[in-house]
């Protein structure tokens, strides 16, 4: 019976999680991507319970600007003066994704399930197109995305927030 509470919140998605596609023109460049998913958090350390609210309070909404700033900070911190190293990058990708996740968690967006996706690619002059598409409730769900580009690599970090009703 406690399971009920534990499982609280409703994942209405069969909701398709953000689907990101990355097209790279042929060439030798590498692209690494990592996605990290968190469980919806009601308050720190607690799982979300069922409520009658189907809309988040304003202060708990997923705010794109704040998240963007956080992502930007993380990216700058992690990637400044870094060059693309195929050995190092997979770990780097994961690290960044985790860092962003924890950063965004601190924003206390209640009842949001976060999906953080980080893509790091080598810059060799190839053209890259990346696009994301989500099946979600545009009222509650949102995403923030930042791009970091330097001479040897580009990094796209996106955080998607899905509200748990």
């Amino acid at each position, binding site marked *: 019976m406690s399971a009920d509470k534990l499982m609280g919140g*409703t*994942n209405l998605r069969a909701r398709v999680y953000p689907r*990101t596609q990355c097209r790279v023109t042929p060439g030798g460049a590498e692209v690494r991507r990592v996605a990290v998913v968190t469980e919806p958090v009601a308050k720190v350390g607690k799982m979300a319970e069922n409520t009658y609210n189907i809309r988040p309070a304003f202060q708990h909404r997923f705010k794109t600007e704040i998240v963007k700033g956080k992502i930007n900070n993380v990216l700058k911190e992690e990637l400044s003066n870094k060059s693309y190293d195929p050995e190092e990058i997979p770990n780097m990708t994961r690290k960044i994704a985790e860092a962003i996740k924890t950063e965004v968690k601190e924003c206390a967006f209640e009842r949001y399930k976060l999906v953080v996706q980080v893509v790091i690619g080598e810059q060799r002059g190839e053209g890259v197109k*990346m*696009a994301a*598409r*989500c*099946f979600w409730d*545009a009222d509650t769900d949102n995403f923030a995305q930042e791009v970091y580009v330097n001479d040897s690599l580009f990094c796209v970090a996106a955080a998607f927030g899905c509200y748990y009703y």
Partner: protein
Amino acid sequence: MRSSKGKTKDDTWKSEELLKHIKAAQGDHTDDNDKKSREKKRHKDEASTGSSDSREHRHRERERDKERERERDKDRVRNKGKERDGDRHKEREHEKVPKKVKSEERDKEKKQEKEREKHKNRDRDKEKDREGELDCSADQRARNKDKERNSNTERPTNRGHESERHRDKDKERDKKKERDKLQEKAKEKDEIGDQRSKHRQRKDKVSNCASENLDLPKDDKNEEKERKHRERKDKEGRSTENSEESKEKKRRSSEVKDEDHDRRYKERKEHGPRDGHREKRPKERKEPGQEGRVEETEKKRRERKDKESKEDEKKHRYKDIKEQSGKKKKERRSVQEVPNERRPKGSTVEQVACQEKPTESLSEESTSGLQSTWRSSWIGLNDDDALVEGEEIAMDSQSTIESSNYEDDFEDYEDDFEDDECEDEEVEQEKEEMPARQRAEIEEIKKAISAENEQIRATQTRSNRKTYEEEPKRDFEISQTSGPSRGTFIDFVAAKQREISSKVASKQKKRSVELLRLIDLDFSVTFSMLDLPPLNEYDVYIKNFGRTNTKQAFVQCNEDNVDRESQTDELDTVEKWTQHPGEGSLVCGGVNVSDASSSVATNVDSRRLTNFLKSACQVIAVLLEEDQAEYQASQNIQSKTASLSVSDGCSQLNTNLPFLHGRKVLCLRFSQVQRQTLLSVHSLPKEPGVAQLASNYIICVWNIWEPSAPQKVLVCESEVQCCCFGPGNAISVFAGTVDGSVIAWDLREHSIIHYSLQIGGQEWILRNPTFSTDGVLAAVNHSCAVKAVDPVSSAYFDNHGAGLSLLASQEGSSGLSFQLASLDESGLLNLWVVVELQKADLAGSLTDLGLIPGGKIKLIHSSSINVNSFFPRNLMQLGPPQTLSIRFLPSDPNHFFIGTDIGLVSHGTRHGLQTAPKLYKPQMNSVRPVQVTCIDFCHFGKTMFLVGCSDGTIRLHSVATDHPILQWNESTQGRPIQTVLWALTRPGMFFVLDESSHIYVWDLLQNDSKPVAEESLQLDRITTIAILGDPEKPSASSGLMLAKQSGAIEIQYLKKQWSEPHLNELETLHYILQKTI
């Protein structure tokens, strides 16, 4: 099941060791023991594994089948079915006899047996194992194993011991099984699969057999015997209990299906608990009481056997250590071979072999020492079969691996098989009591099982597995004891969990369904997360090389080294201006006009300059001519010098030109301004030299210093009576013709508008008159021959005495506007104004009809004066006198003097009152028909003039008086005077030419009565004479121009005494004249 097999192997190994050990130690005693145990075992076998015997049979049959299959695969299916059935029938029939004998023994445990038989399907492996164990020499122990498996409860220690030992293997096999199960499921019902499974099963059995044979070489025959007995008994038992069997089989078939499910979820993982569970379930249901009993009896036996087996095990282990692996292998191999070899025999010979073997085995039973030898002989004997066996071995090895996979199939097959059997039996035997009650019971059971299965299926297999896997370890005993209830417990947990999860799921689903009504989920717009355009090559280059520590540099190679020229010196430019025609002092100027002199130079009148140049050119030309002339004169002309006494030299103008050849010179006239310029008029030639000029009179313009050729050649068609230059300069020539026309030439005209003629290799330009009054001004024009043409130059005469300056001023004014007087014979004096046109018209003028195209001078009639009006009336009675010549008074052009043919000279004026004397008369008689041939004014004093008359008289008149001062009548002996000429340099001297070519030189200072000298040139008569000299320059050469009849023109240079004036000569002359008067 796997585990069981493993156990059997191990057991067999152990048993083998054990056997040896025992035999070595105990000798026949063991045999007894064995026998006893065997007997006991037999009972138990019959009770517990009755079916296993029959299985043995089947097993053999199948082996045989297998061989056949190999031989002919096509017939496989058919054969199996039929043969199997057939075999079985035979067997059954065969076994029917002993069945009755042994039925009593079995009665006790019949039901149990049957149940076990029914459960064969499930527990075939175990049964197989059991078979193996049963066949072992250590029958008891095998039985123990059987019991263990049948009822695991009885010997926990042993069980645990074994299970522990083999658990690992079990697990491994379980896993394999699980894996294989998936593959199998699909094939479960498949015939081929079944067959395969049978093969494997058979192989399993083969291996078991092998183990049997290995383990119990001594007991082989015994076993065989026993087996056959047992089988027979089984069959008998079966036949007798067909009714029961059939029922049970039916149930079993249903159960089998159920158990299939069970198997999936449970069995595979654990055979121990499951076995117990499965086996016990039916037992519980059907014969709880019986089972309890059986269990009790079995317990006792097992306890007994356990002890033995423990001992065996110990020994076995002890031996194990000692034994070498190589030996083991050897044995094992041989063991495998033995049964294989034996099998074909068994299969082919079948029952014969079966019956024979026991005897052999019996004989050998006692002599266990012979075992090895026997075996070796076996091997030797059956070497030829080795190939076939080899294959079998291979297959066996395979099958051992796979056998577990096909257990299910095997079971299924068994089901089918037994169903067939059942049917057969049912058909054969009375389909007796099949009470509806039992059927219902079966149905109920089926339902219960299916329900159970479904529950189990629904619960997650994983959790179940865990529980199952954990449980056996934890509480084997418990599981043994509470085996039946355990399955339900597991099911409950799974079901509970499932229930919970489904509950949660349904809740969530409900919630989501409700929420979804309130929430709109939509596909978001596609977010473009990154759009990194591909770099072009240049960007890549710059990216790679255009950054740090690099410089871009360019080097020009020679290929595109372009060579070009350019003007680098600055152009010097100066701004200047100029103006044309230059008027005023400044003709040109500019920024840097520093040289004043140049500008001054340009200030010089260009007209004056051109004039200067013209004259200079002439001078130069003259000088050159002179050089040439001197040179020639030294040769030719100088010889003729002394032709005249008064002259000291002479030169000739070159009139020996083709167009002048044969022409007589009619007139010579010097220009008043340019004293060296001479006009000579040439008459028509006597014989035409040049055809073009035959009918033309020619006027030549000469420069006497250029004697070689005339400067200009003027052409006129009518006879020229008189000619003169213009007053200012020698640029225009006028002439009067016989037919009364006045003609003008402009010497400045360009040569191109005139006709040029190539004569004798030299080009001559023949100038036609620029203007002619012929036929143009008919009203005012002369109607008779023009006797005299004379320009009226007022300026010249006005500024008399100011010689050079006057000349210069005249030249400067270029006065082409002047008057010209022409006098014809009838006394008509016409005055013309010579007008120069500003612009020549090459197309010709419409108004000026007498003008040549391109000509610029024309004559305009100014006034006409009838000279006859000046004559007195008395003279007019004889008719109007013929006027012959006219002279204007040099000091006043208003006065003119006209000579007549009556010996008188009339004096007239152009305008104003007539002045006295009107007539100048000779001294003697006033009027007589004497022509005044010439009048010439003295160049000094200008008031005296000489008149020559045709009667040879010469009169010297003064303008003021009508009578002459002096008159010489007989100076020429009556010959008419042709020309009287005052000398230009001396005032008291004049020359007279008479018609007979005499020249008289008069010097009034020396002698005033007769000429001082007289020359007569009769050889070549002189036609006309002109005097050369300049009154202004007395020192300059002066001479006489003589035109000869032959056409030659000579210049006789006067001697110094004649040409140089004396001191006060004019005063002396005046004095003499005063004295004479």
